């Protein structure tokens, strides 16, 4: 009896909490005139639902190319980031000597730098480097500045330091073998930490907004978030298209979250914003 009641309360709270997202999903299938019609009763209606909004949003927002751009952006950041951050972390953890130690202090300081501050001077720097305009250049501008992340270096270094030292003692004695030890011993040993970094970075950069907003100047270079913002700000405003676009953007995120939930550990989250 008590357990049944507890279940009922929990289910009610859960539905209430997720109501905005449930409404988003439902309304995305409704015809334009019906989206803001009536009250809660309408939420349960299955009449007049169609995929029209999805078809129109896909066309109007060029979501095919938008999804591809976002996918390439995230993949690029992850690939370069995994390699470069873990290499640096390994060096800081195992190949210590005086110079890099001071550099590590600098890396620690960079962790607190909010990306919002960086955007304007970074945009001008990226322009000076000729990384604006076309597809490849814009993609480079989206990826290169954010592949290396001070926090990830710090985080992976902690995990390399926690490895038993004799596992790769040889690396310290003989620098020539360092890369092989890093690649075939150290890196596989910190796989869980790498997974955490991948999942958190994936979610973070799929949501990137400020930077793509200033870099993606042409329609064919837009990421999905910018495509959504454009549907939202450029007349004619079609709420159904906006909703369908929002759902399409959200599906990959929920999929990743569902598959990778166990890699999102609360203590890592806490470390992530320290």
């Amino acid at each position, binding site marked *: 009896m008590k357990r049944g009641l507890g279940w009922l309360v929990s289910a009610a709270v859960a539905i209430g909490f997720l109501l905005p997202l449930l409404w988003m999903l439902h309304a995305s299938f409704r015809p334009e005139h019906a989206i*803001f019609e009536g009250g809660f009763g309408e939420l349960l209606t299955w009449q007049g639902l169609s995929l029209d909004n999805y078809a129109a949003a896909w066309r109007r927002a060029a979501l095919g190319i938008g999804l591809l751009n976002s996918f390439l952006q995230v993949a690029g950041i992850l690939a370069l980031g995994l390699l470069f*951050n873990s290499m640096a972390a390994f060096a800081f953890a195992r190949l210590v000597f005086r110079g890099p130690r001071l550099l590590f202090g600098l890396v620690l300081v960079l962790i607190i*730098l909010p990306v919002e501050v960086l*955007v304007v001077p970074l945009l001008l720097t990226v322009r000076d480097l000729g990384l604006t305009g076309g597809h490849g250049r814009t993609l480079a501008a989206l990826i290169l500045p954010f592949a290396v992340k001070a926090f990830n*270096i710090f985080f992976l270094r902690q995990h390399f330091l926690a490895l038993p030292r004799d596992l790769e003692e040889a690396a310290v004695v003989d620098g020539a073998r*360092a*890369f092989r030890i890093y690649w075939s011993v150290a890196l596989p040993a910190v796989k869980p930490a790498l997974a955490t970094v991948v999942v958190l970075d994936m979610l973070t950069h799929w949501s990137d907004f400020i930077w793509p907003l200033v870099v993606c100047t042409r329609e064919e270079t837009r990421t999905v978030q910018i495509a959504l913002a454009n549907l939202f700000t450029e007349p004619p405003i079609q709420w159904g298209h906006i909703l369908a676009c*929002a759902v399409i953007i959200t599906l990959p995120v929920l999929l990743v979250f569902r598959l990778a939930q166990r890699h999102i550990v609360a203590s890592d989250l806490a470390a992530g914003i320290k």
Partner: protein
Amino acid sequence: MNPVSNSTRAAAWLFLAPALALLGVFTLWPMLRALGWSFTAADLLALDSARGVGGANYSDLLTDPRFRRAFLNTAWFAVMVVPVQAALAFFLALWVNRPERYWRWLRTVFFVPVVVSMPVLAVLWTMLYQPARGDQMGLLNALATGLGLSAQDWLQNPRLALPAIAFMSVWQGVGFQMMIFLAGLQNLSPEQLEAAKIDGAHAGQRLRHVIVPAMRPSIVFVLTATLILSFRLFVQPYLMTRGGPEDATVSIIQVIYEMTFLGRELGMASAGAMLFLLLVAALTLLQRFFAREVRS
């Protein structure tokens, strides 16, 4: 330290080179340039002809009404969000902290808005806050009128717009804070955990005398981290209200961007960015300080 061989030294630099090169070109160099511009009258379209103005940009900003408005908005946003979100997250954590695997889904529910992209949520809540026009209205107003309250134009009313954005932000981020509290609860002793079941008699007392003291490190962390995150407010007002109505929701970041891209005042905007960076750095130091206090 061990004597370091030359080959190890070379290997270390090789390992560090890609990361240091990218950080140098795309973080350090831009930041140094911005620091330089902040002391000049640099124009966005004529960078080289910048004339030095000393600290004038900084003193101008501190008296600039729009910059001050943005600072006050952001501070007010933090005052609304931080305590409410932390308290709500704390009680959610106590509520969902059940050992049975079966109840895991409940934690997931509260974490879902955290993983959905902020632009998506900003757009969605703009629709939920839609004012009433005839029989057309957003979900929030449908709820309000259903309860016999009057419908509001949430985002276009200068008094309601920022609280409305704060409400949405609490909903979006509460699951994150909840997870951190959950991790904190996992460090409690069995007796403390027993006390953390909030139902039954003397629940309030146990909460005050047993659980809150034991959870102090998590509480300090959540409060300070939420404070820092709130000051970085930008996407929600940028999409939901464009900073309006009457600058009621304009954020520090938006003011800096408009100085750059609309006013072309790169020098002034860079000074604004530096002030913002100082603010975040100060808050971070505050966080470290409190964290250390709590530990000792």
